[in-house]
C-alpha cells in the first residue's frame, strides 16, 4: 500500500494487508481487527495508537499468530520478509516467533515465569530455535542482558524475576525478544506499567537498540505523547480499523480525522493549565455487531447523513484517513 513511504529499492520487512481478526462469541461476532493494512521498513518504528478496545493489541497478537480462541484470523495477509504468516501451521509459526518476529507485553510483572531463573528462561528461549550448550547460552544471555542495560548481567542470570524491579523485568523481556537478532518486535504498551522516569529510559533505549540492530518496532500504545517521541509514523486505530496514518510530525500538527484531533485535544500537555481537559464525548463502541457506517459517527461533531456509509481510506501523499469530513487545517492547541 504505502509505496510512497518506503525508501526506494528496499522491500518492507513486514507487510500487513487487509488483516481481519474476528472473535466468534456466543453473543455474536466481534470484529476486533477489521481490514488493517500497513507496512514496516527495516529499522523503522511505527506507533499504533488507539483507546482501549480499539483492537490494537489483537492486531499485535495477530501478527505473530497468537490469537486465542474464540478469536481467529479470518482474512488478509501478514508477510514477514516476503513469507506469508497467515495460514501457516503451528510448527511453521513457532519457527518464526521469537526468531524473526517477537513481542514484548504490557505488564513486566506477569510476563516472566516467577519460578524459573532469568538464565533458565533465556536458555529455553534460545533452545527454542537453535542447539545451544548451557555454557554458550549463559554467555549469550549475559550479552543480551548487558545490551539492554542490566548491570552485572552474568551474576543476575541466577536471579528470579521477583528480585528485579519492574523496569528491569521489562528490560529482561526485551532482551529475550532480541535474543535471536529479531527483525521485528511488537511492543504492546511496554512502558505503561512503569513509572514515568523508567518509561523515558526504556523508550530511549528501545530507540537506540532498534537503530543499532536494524530492528523494526511496532509500538502499540494508547498514549500519543509516548509514541510521538519514538515513532516516525503513526497509525491511529478506532473500532478495529486504521482511521488515520501518516508521518508523526504531520499527524500531530495537522490531524485530518476528527478522532485524532480529539485525542490530541485531550492530551494534558496541549491544554491551558488550570482549564478542564477536552475529552471526546461517549465511549468506544462495542465491536459486537458493529453497525454499518463510520464507527466514530455517534461521537463526532462533524457527522452527517453521509457518515452512514463507511468512509474509504483517502490517500494524499504520505497521509491517509478514513473520513467523509476530514479536517483541513491544524487544530489550535
Amino acid at each position, binding site marked *: 500500500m504505502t509505496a510512497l513511504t518506503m525508501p526506494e529499492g528496499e522491500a518492507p520487512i513486514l507487510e500487513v494487508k487487509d488483516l481481519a481478526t474476528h472473535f466468534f462469541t456466543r453473543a455474536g461476532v466481534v470484529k476486533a481487527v477489521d481490514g488493517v493494512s500497513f507496512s514496516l521498513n527495516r529499522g523503522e518504528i511505527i506507533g499504533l495508537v488507539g483507546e482501549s478496545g480499539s483492537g490494537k493489541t489483537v492486531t499485535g497478537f495477530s501478527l505473530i499468530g497468537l490469537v486465542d480462541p474464540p478469536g481467529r484470523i479470518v482474512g488478509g495477509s501478514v508477510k514477514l520478509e516476503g513469507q506469508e504468516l497467515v495460514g501457516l501451521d503451528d510448527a511453521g509459526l513457532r519457527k518464526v516467533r521469537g526468531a524473526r518476529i517477537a*513481542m514484548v507485553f504490557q505488564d513486566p510483572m506477569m510476563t516472566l515465569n*516467577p*519460578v524459573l531463573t532469568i538464565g533458565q528462561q533465556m536458555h529455553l528461549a534460545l533452545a527454542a530455535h537453535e542447539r545451544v550448550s548451557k555454557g554458550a547460552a549463559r554467555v549469550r544471555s549475559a550479552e543480551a542482558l548487558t545490551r539492554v542495560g542490566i548491570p552485572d548481567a552474568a551474576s543476575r542470570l541466577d536471579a528470579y524475576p521477583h528480585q528485579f524491579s519492574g523496569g528491569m523485568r521489562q528490560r529482561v523481556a526485551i532482551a529475550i525478544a532480541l535474543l535471536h537478532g529479531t527483525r521485528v518486535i511488537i511492543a504492546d504498551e511496554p512502558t505503561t506499567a512503569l513509572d514515568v522516569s523508567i518509561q523515558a529510559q526504556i523508550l530511549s533505549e528501545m530507540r537506540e537498540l532498534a537503530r543499532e540492530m536494524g530492528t523494526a518496532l511496532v509500538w502499540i500504545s494508547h498514549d500519543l505523547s509516548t509514541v510521538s517521541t519514538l515513532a516516525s509514523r503513526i497509525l491511529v486505530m478506532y473500532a478495529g480499523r486504521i482511521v488515520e496514518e501518516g508521518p508523526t510530525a504531520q499527524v500531530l500538527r495537522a490531524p485530518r480525522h476528527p478522532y485524532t484531533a480529539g485525542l490530541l485535544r485531550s492530551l494534558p500537555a496541549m491544554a491551558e493549565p488550570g482549564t478542564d481537559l477536552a475529552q471526546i464525548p461517549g465511549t468506544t463502541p462495542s465491536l459486537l455487531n458493529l453497525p454499518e457506517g463510520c464507527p466514530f459517527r455517534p461521537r463526532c461533531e462533524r457527522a452527517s447523513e453521509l457518515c452512514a456509509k463507511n468512509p474509504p481510506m483517502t490517500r494524499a501523499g504520505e497521509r491517509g484517513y478514513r473520513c467523509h469530513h476530514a479536517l483541513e487545517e491544524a487544530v489550535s492547541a
Partner: protein
Amino acid sequence: MSSFLLQRILQGIVIMAVMSVIVFAGVYAIGNPMEVLIPPEATQDVRLRTIARFGLDKSLVEQYFLFISNLFQGDLGQSYIYNEPVLRLIGNRLPATLELVLTAVLGATFIGVPLGIYAGYKPESATARIIMAVSILGFSVPTFWVGLILILTFAVSLGWLPSGGRGDTVEVFGIDWSIFTLDGWSHLILPATNLALFKLAIMIRLARAGTREVMLSDAVKFARAAGLSEATILSRHVLKLISIPIVTVFGLELASTLAFAVVTETIFSWPGVGKLIIDSIKNLDRPVMVAYLILTAGLFVTINLCVDIGYAVLDPRLRRGRAE
C-alpha cells in the same frame, strides 16, 4: 533457609508436646481399661494388684510424666493385650501400611498429574471429558464399595489376583517388605488401586484447574511468543507453576492415608497399623492408642515440614532469610 528450618523444627516440637498432653488426657477420658482387663469375678485384692501393676493407681499427672520419661528412653510402654512392647507391635505393622500408602499416593500423583495437565490443556477434547468423568467417579464412589468390587472382579471372578494378605516378603534393613517380591506386588496392587482412586481424582482436578489458569497467563503467552514448543511450555513452565497446591495435597493425603487407611486394610486383610489401632480402641489398650496417636502426630509434623521445604525449593518467592 537454615533459620527457617530451625524455626519449623521448634514449632514441630511444641506441637508434639501439646499433642502428647491432649492424647494422654483424651485417652484417659475414654474409659477405664481395667473394666475390660480384669474379669468381673476377680477378688478385690487381685483387682488392686493388677491396677498397681499397670501403674493405674497413680494420678493422671504422675502417669503422664512417667510416660514422658519412658518415652525419652525409647520406651512407649507395653500393650495390655499383646503383652509386647508397643514400639515393636507398631514397628511390625508400619512397613506394611507404609508400602501400601506410598504406592497408592505416588501412583495417584504420577498418573493423576499428567492426566490433569492434559485435561486442562485441551479441556474441550473427548479424552479430557473422559478423564474428568473418571475423576468424578473417583470422588463419588465409596472406597469400601470399590474395594469389594475389585475383589469380586479380579480375585473372585477372574482369579487373576489374590483377595487379601501381604504375600511373600523380603527382609531389607531388618524389615519385611512386599514391594520387593513379585508375589508381594500381586497382593499389593488391588488395595493400592483402591486407596489411590480418590487421590487420583483429587490430583487430576488440581492439575487441571492449575493448568487451565496458567495457560491463560502472560508468562505462557510470552513463552509462546518466544517460539517455545507446547511440550516445553507444559513440562518446563506449567508443571512448575502448578506444583505448589499439588505438593500441599500430596503431603496431606500421604499423612492422612498413613494414619487412616483402615477401611482398605480391613477389606483386603492387609496387616497394617489401621487394624491394630481399631483393635486397641475396642479393647481400651491405652499404651497402643497413645503411642499410635503420638506417632501419627509426629508423622503429620514431619510430612508438613517436608512440604514446607518443598515449597521453598519450588517457589523462589517463598524463600526467606536469603540475602538479596
